[in-house]
């Protein structure tokens, strides 16, 4: 029997994912929770859907099985909130691409920096992993 788990149980394997600062790993639990957020986002791969969405975002969102909380997070482009609700960045990319935002700009909105600050950090070598690897381990 091959296993990626070694001596871990699957519960231990999954629990470690919660030990990374400022990161929501896209687990099965999140995929389940965010299913319709992600399906909505993918619908924006079609130009005609992008047009309809842009014309009346709220009306477009009302066609999907989304909670009011999810709709508000989508309307306000609150990406961290959307991650909490089970959104995944590759799905949400269809939304910020529809908005004409680059990956870097959209991603910067999830940090505590402005886009110019974020860009500067990246140009200077990016965010160091130092101290950001483990919440419990503080390393």
């Amino acid at each position, binding site marked *: 029997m091959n296993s990626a788990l070694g001596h871990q149980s699957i519960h231990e394997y999954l629990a470690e994912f919660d030990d990374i600062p400022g990161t929501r790993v896209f687990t099965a639990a999140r995929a389940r929770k965010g299913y319709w957020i992600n399906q909505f986002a993918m619908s924006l791969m079609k130009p005609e859907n992008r047009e309809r969405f842009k014309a009346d975002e709220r009306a477009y969102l009302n066609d999907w099985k989304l909670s009011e909380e999810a709709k508000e997070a989508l309307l306000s482009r609150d990406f961290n909130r959307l991650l909490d609700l089970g959104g995944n960045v590759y799905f949400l990319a269809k939304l910020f691409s529809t908005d004409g935002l680059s990956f*870097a700009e959209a991603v910067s909105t999830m940090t505590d920096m402005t886009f110019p600050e974020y860009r500067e950090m990246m140009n200077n070598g990016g965010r160091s992993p130092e101290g950001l690897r483990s919440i419990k381990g503080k390393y």
Partner: protein
Amino acid sequence: MARITAGIGSSHVPLLGVAVDQGKTGDEYFGPIFQGYEWTRTWLETTAKPDVVILVYNDHASAFDANIIPTFAIGCGDVYKSADEGWGPRPVPDVEGHAGLAWHIAQSLILEEFDMTIINEMDVDHGLTVPMSMMFGAPAAWPVRVVPLAVNVVTYPVPSGNRCWALGEAIARAVQSFPEDLNVQIWGTGGMSHQLQGPRAGLLNREWDNRFLDLLETAGDAARHIPHIEYLRETGSEGIEMVMWLIMRGALGHAVTRLHRHYHIPCSNTAIGHIVLEPA
């Protein structure tokens, strides 16, 4: 007899596609990145001249929606179009498949107990088309045929490094038993360190990435046993894409010769790395 003659590991950042499509490959920001690929482009055109590339990449919510998540999907179709990822499809040539080789590999892998998903029609996103642009520039038609191999590295659990390496080994055996005389390369794409989400976004790890490149060069297969959590902690939530490089590396056999290696920080949110290897 077909044979795998070389492997390439390479990032596949969408912004590099934009740079190619908008003719910015020589500017101050992109110049150092594209210069790093110069050696590889020349080598491919003048020396390596592959007939087919087995292109390992991940679909970024383009061909597969949230409804269906194949761990390993192999493209057995004749042609693949560039996907519309929200800003219109990239203006690149259609990607011509190699259905004969692809079906042969698919059959061989299933007989070796890999639980493949076969796919015939799909659009391919930046994960596949950006490496094509980096390696071949902007030709009117791509100079190779492609067998796309899409790996789930988005929804956890993604396949283990060990499983990826073993898949690469099995792909090499499958290619070897294909009767046509074909010069086949295998590319593993994605990475290197990057995180596209949450307050920790922007994480890069030059040291870890370069240790990973070192491991690929050495004969040992320590890289196959790196656990998911290490990629996540050290290389950001999207650094896990590097498990796809292990499929490439596994296909090259025990020992390899490094022909070229390049690393640059940053491109958009990402550390750009690429390495060209030959079976030793």
